């Protein structure tokens, strides 16, 4: 009986997800498509929670729906028209549809076959046995920052590369129109709360769902909110500090790795006694880096005065 209910819940979630994906991809208006995409991200967060992936649920809600949604919404204004039409010929339509259908059938068979063939050996047993020496008790954080720390280092490098591309290509988008006093009021309450919650997520990532990426993205969300409420706040950024913050994550990570290499003969091989502290230090630097990177990605390009280094700090324009 319980299984039937769970199956009903799961099938409803799956149907809704597929429906949202279909309407996102086949919508005629860009604004509508982006809104549906944000909704799909939130539904995905619920599905992650249902599939016992709470870290991912947090990350998807903040990054996948929040930051990504804000990015896409602000990018709509870059393009002159918001109508989506497909210019492919009917023959091409037919070819693409057939190809996709064939691929779906093949992939479904592959997935079904792979699930049947699995020999039941799960990595969770291996991870659980090594958690006591990893320095944290959240298995995902242990995997992310200890067992597969090198992947996380490369991930931070990827984020930095993307932000460098954003900075090289464009100046920031023009400041948007004056914002609403209601938004400013709520921002004044919400941003300190977001900063505290981000610090909480960073701290609690060691023993409960959370961690550096969720915390960094939440800080970025706070900065995006500030940018929306006070459109000229980017003029107050200390650009030298911003550059330092961008690379602080990778710098700290590599430094710790090299230090551990000199102590234990292997890059990023933590001494078990210090593992917890080292992970916290790396996570803190990574949080700040990710926050700076995602904020710059949202701003869309070089802030005012990036090349010359002198920028105007105006606090008077939007006081209120």
């Amino acid at each position, binding site marked *: 009986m319980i*299984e*039937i209910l*769970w199956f009903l819940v*799961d099938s409803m979630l799956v149907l809704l997800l*597929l429906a949202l*994906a279909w309407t*996102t*991809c086949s919508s005629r208006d860009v604004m509508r*498509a982006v809104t549906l*995409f944000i909704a*799909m991200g939130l539904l*995905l967060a619920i*599905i*992650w929670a249902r*599939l*016992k*992936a709470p870290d*991912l649920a947090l*990350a998807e809600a903040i990054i*996948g729906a929040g*930051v*990504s949604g804000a*990015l*896409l919404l602000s*990018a709509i204004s*870059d*393009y002159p028209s918001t109508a989506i039409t*497909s210019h*492919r010929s009917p023959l091409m339509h037919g070819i*693409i549809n057939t190809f996709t259908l064939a*691929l*779906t059938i093949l*992939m*479904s068979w592959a*997935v*079904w076959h792979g*699930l049947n063939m699995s020999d039941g050996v*799960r*990595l*969770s047993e291996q*991870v*659980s046995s090594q958690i006591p020496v990893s320095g944290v008790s959240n*298995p*995902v954080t242990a*995997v*992310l920052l200890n067992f597969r720390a090198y992947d996380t280092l490369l*991930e931070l490098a*990827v984020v930095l*590369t*993307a932000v460098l*591309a*954003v900075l090289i*290509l*464009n100046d920031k988008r023009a400041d948007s129109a004056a914002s609403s006093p209601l938004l400013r009021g709520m921002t004044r309450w919400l941003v300190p709360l977001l900063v505290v919650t981000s610090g909480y997520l960073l701290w609690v990532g060691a023993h409960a769902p959370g961690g550096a*990426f969720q915390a960094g993205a939440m800080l970025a969300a706070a900065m995006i909110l500030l940018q929306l409420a006070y459109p000229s706040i980017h003029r107050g950024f200390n650009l030298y500090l911003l550059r330092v913050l961008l690379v602080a994550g990778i710098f700290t990570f590599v430094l710790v790795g090299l230090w551990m290499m000199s102590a234990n003969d292997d890059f990023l091989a933590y001494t078990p006694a210090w593992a917890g502290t080292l992970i916290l230090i790396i996570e803190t630097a990574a949080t700040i880096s990710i926050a700076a*990177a995602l904020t710059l*990605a*949202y701003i*869309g*390009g070089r802030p005012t005065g990036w090349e010359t280094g002198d920028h105007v700090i105006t606090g008077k324009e939007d006081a209120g």
Partner: protein
Amino acid sequence: MISTQLLYSLAGVGLFAIGLRATLLHHLLLPRLLALNVCGAGVFLIFIAVAYAGIEGMADPVPHALVLTGIVVAVSATAMALALGRRLESKESETMKSEAMKDE
């Protein structure tokens, strides 16, 4: 009654197919970017469905970590694609304006 793992894996395959079809059909940047993100979401779903081990058991943390990395990388790639698109768009409108002025 298919297992939860199979149900969500098939949903992931479906998501990937929907995104792939839309990527191939459209020619503007923003719809294709959305469709690529949908593809990515489908792949993540397959990962997490395979990592799922029942309501009582512990889910596999390694695919969780991989997908977490994937989510962050996906948003960075989206940001970079949007920056490229914006630069291309401004270049195109510059070229069209200078050509229009030459025609006059």
